């Protein structure tokens, strides 16, 4: 941290600096894709269910996760100053009696994940919605973390 401040580098709020490296790698790949027209797969793997996509615009962070078949009452979302925790359970109702399974690929179980956000958030205003099996959490950035337009006089 001291190193970062001394050399004027922004402080990363991410737990691991590799996440930021991943982001840079993605941006580089995007450049190559645009130039060469071929697609490169650069997915980050956290190894924790559910897989999430985190995006941002000027005012908000957006966390999206694919949670098919999860009911909103089985989901629990908590927000702290810089993190959002998603816990829940996916239940799969048992088939009627006498049913013979040919394939069973869908899985049920509990999950829990904490997502650290790169800047401070407004924890009171976090909104979550679940539609068509996609969970979207809209996390407003804290007022001081928002970019400010500065007019040159």
């Amino acid at each position, binding site marked *: 941290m001291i190193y970062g401040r001394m050399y004027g580098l922004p402080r990363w709020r991410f737990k691991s600096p590799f996440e930021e490296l991943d982001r840079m790698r993605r941006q580089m790949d995007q450049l190559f894709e645009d130039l060469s027209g071929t697609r490169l797969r650069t997915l980050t793997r*956290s190894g*924790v269910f559910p897989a*999430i996509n985190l995006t*941002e615009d000027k005012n908000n962070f*957006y966390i999206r996760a694919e*949670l*098919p*078949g999860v009911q909103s009452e089985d989901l629990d979302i908590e927000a702290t100053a810089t993190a959002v925790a998603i816990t829940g359970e996916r239940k799969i109702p048992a088939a009627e009696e006498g049913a*013979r399974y040919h394939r069973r690929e869908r899985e049920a179980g509990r999950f829990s994940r904490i997502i650290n956000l790169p800047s401070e958030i407004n924890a009171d205003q976090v909104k979550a919605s679940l539609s068509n*099996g996609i969970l979207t959490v809209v996390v407003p950035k804290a007022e001081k973390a928002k970019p400010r337009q500065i007019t040159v006089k």
Partner: protein
Amino acid sequence: MAETTKALKIKDKQELAPSAEQTREGLVFTPDVDIFETEKEIVLLADVPGVKPENVNIDLRDNILTLSCEVEPFENAEEEDILIEYETGTFYRQFTLSEVIDQSRIDAKLKDGVLRLTLPKVEEATPRKITVKTE
């Protein structure tokens, strides 16, 4: 059910290697399915998160059932990626059915990103007993 309390493990989405070249750009994934059979019907459950009911295509011909569900992009244009762990695209899967299906009574429901397809079996004609007459 005791087994439902186990922790879910992350599973990569299975990208489909298409046998024929696609006409449209975009990724294609294989949805996870459960298939079970009762005396009267075959039920297929498929995880298709992000699919709207109007984008589900189900086709059954020559005993081949084709599922194709398109996913519309739901990110706003001005959003910038920070962390990307999954990609979205069309869900596509084909099955060969061994049973004769009553096509007129196929029923499809989409709820919370899970497609439930009920394929009723054709009621078999009662076997006729043939008696051999002797002169």
